[in-house]
């Protein structure tokens, strides 16, 4: 049986409160929120060769968690089919064997409303004799539902070894280090935005009485918020933005402009000020990915989240950095860094995407915003 998306009613005076209605609203909501469509699978039994310069889906051979049976180990082994329409957070990690040049990257492949899409994440500079394990995260829209025929999500790998070469490269498999994909449903395709965080008040006891207003707040609005919380992804598409070189990672980074909305149900990102403002209080999953087109003088790269909140650093804005990592000192290839944090924010707190790079020639590097190499930021409300 597929998971059910609740559709809470609006209560009015005289509305009968029926047990079936409560089951359809409350029981289904609790079932969905406590057992959401999700997946965790890995490639743990054998390695997989990845061709040069080809985004390749990973054949998952081990299901750690697949409560809705969206993956099979026998057929369509690359794909996890969503059992419920909505937006999903997909994350992957891609250990690859050691290289002496070139780069390796993790990514997400998907079909969204029947259209194939591909998104690369972190791209790391490998080192001979050591394994690199880049990661990726993407908000993925799943509309067509059906195992084997509907939209799906897959982990992906990419490699360029050596630079300008054409050699296959194997994913790395050990007991503790292997390619994996996780997915989890985060919100419905559509819903009611602008709702406050539910307070979940006690039900009235005599002499107080149940009102339509109470039922709407405690049932309709609470459920609508939980199935459609604030979720945002904006990306940068273009080639007119660059990041200046700095010799040290600063306390507060240079702001990256994002100009293309993927999804922003609470209209929380302002691309004039390049600022995302928390629409409600809570703990947010925050992710940013910076892709730069560097060159032989590139040395390091980092993605950041510049936070302005009374909860951190005495209210003074500062940047959470992911990376800093070594950048590819080669022409005609990008570097990509990611940052990921769970932040407790108050309504009105702001987060800006930040970028850093150090280039031995002290030159700026272009922000990449084309094709599957995109600079982007994701925020997802997760808890009160």
């Amino acid at each position: 049986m597929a998971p059910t998306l609740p559709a809470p009613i609006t209560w009015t005076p005289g509305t009968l409160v029926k047990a079936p209605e409560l089951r359809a609203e409350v029981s289904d909501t609790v079932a969905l929120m406590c057992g959401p469509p999700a997946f965790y699978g890995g490639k743990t039994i054998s390695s997989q060769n990845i061709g040069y310069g080809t985004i390749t889906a990973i054949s998952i051979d081990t299901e750690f968690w697949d409560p809705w049976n969206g993956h099979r180990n026998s057929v369509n082994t690359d794909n996890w089919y969503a059992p419920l329409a909505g937006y999903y957070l997909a994350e992957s990690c891609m250990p690859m064997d050691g290289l002496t040049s070139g780069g390796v990257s993790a990514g997400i492949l998907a079909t969204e409303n029947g259209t194939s899409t591909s998104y690369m994440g972190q791209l790391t500079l490998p080192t001979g004799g050591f394994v690199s394990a880049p990661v990726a995260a993407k908000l993925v829209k799943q509309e067509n539902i059906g195992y084997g025929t509907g939209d799906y999500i897959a982990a992906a790998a990419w490699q360029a070894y050596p630079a300008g070469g054409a050699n296959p490269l194997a994913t790395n498999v050990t007991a503790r280090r292997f390619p994996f994909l996780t997915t989890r449903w985060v919100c419905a395709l559509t819903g009611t935005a602008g709702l406050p965080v539910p307070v979940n008040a006690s039900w009235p006891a005599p002499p107080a009485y149940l009102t339509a207003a109470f039922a709407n707040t405690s049932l309709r609005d609470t459920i609508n918020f939980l199935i459609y919380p604030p979720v945002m992804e904006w990306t940068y598409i273009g080639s007119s933005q660059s990041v200046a070189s700095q010799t040290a990672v600063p306390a507060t980074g240079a702001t990256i402009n994002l100009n293309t909305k993927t999804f922003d149900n609470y209209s929380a990102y302002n691309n004039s000020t390049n600022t995302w403002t928390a629409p409600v209080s809570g703990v947010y999953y925050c992710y940013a990915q910076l892709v730069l087109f560097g060159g032989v003088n590139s040395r390091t790269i980092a993605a950041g989240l510049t936070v302005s909140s009374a909860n951190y650093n005495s209210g003074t804005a500062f940047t959470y950095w992911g990376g800093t990592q070594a950048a590819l000192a080669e022409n005609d290839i990008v570097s990509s860094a990611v940052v990921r944090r769970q932040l407790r924010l108050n309504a009105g707190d702001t987060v800006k995407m930040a970028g850093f790079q150090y280039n031995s020639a002290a030159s700026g590097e272009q922000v990449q915003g084309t094709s599957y190499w995109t600079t982007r930021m994701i925020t997802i409300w997760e808890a009160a």
Partner: protein
Amino acid sequence: MTLYPAPPIPVFPAGYAPLPADMDSWIQYPLGFCTQRVVFRAQQTTHQNLVDGALYNGPVVFDDILEDPFYGYPTGGGWNPAANQWMAPFTGWYAVTISVSVQAASGMLGAVVNLANTQQYVLSQIQVSSATVGAATGSVILPMTGGVDYVYAEAYWASLPSGNNQYTDCSLPGRYPAMEIMLVAADGGAPAAVTPPTVNPDDILDENGNMILDEAGGDVEDEGGKG
């Protein structure tokens, strides 16, 4: 802050006359849990030595617990500062994110989570540069049994060339190593048992499981025949 336990999927029996407390246990607590979830966030503000040699240094010591609302639930749950590990309060699946940083040095840095001393998971492993400080971050979703399973963070370090131990980087708030945990799915167990109907003037559902709001959205009408 009111803490709600992991709920079973509530059952609304028709013909049962619930008390307001029943409505709380069926509606307020489960939806409260879904709103609140289980969150743990901690960071390291004092640097820690990372021994070279492709070693999994751990546990990473977190000296600043940002939030751990279920500390002590059940007995011994939450953060254990002596062991630098976090025990799940409820059975379920948890998204665990590990971020580690290192002072400027050339080498391979990895973010690793250790589940119950039985399984390590490498969440990210990247090359860092002597040009600037470095950091790695990754996450995974892990199964944990409430009151039994625990996780702690580890940092993989292999200097290039070998032989250089290094410290984590806590020079700026934005570079603190961190462990963040969020409940993704909970196993609340079997639906709560329903006790036999009882006679009570405070009933707010009738024998058919119906409750009526009056025309003004006011008093609950007694349809009679309760319990």
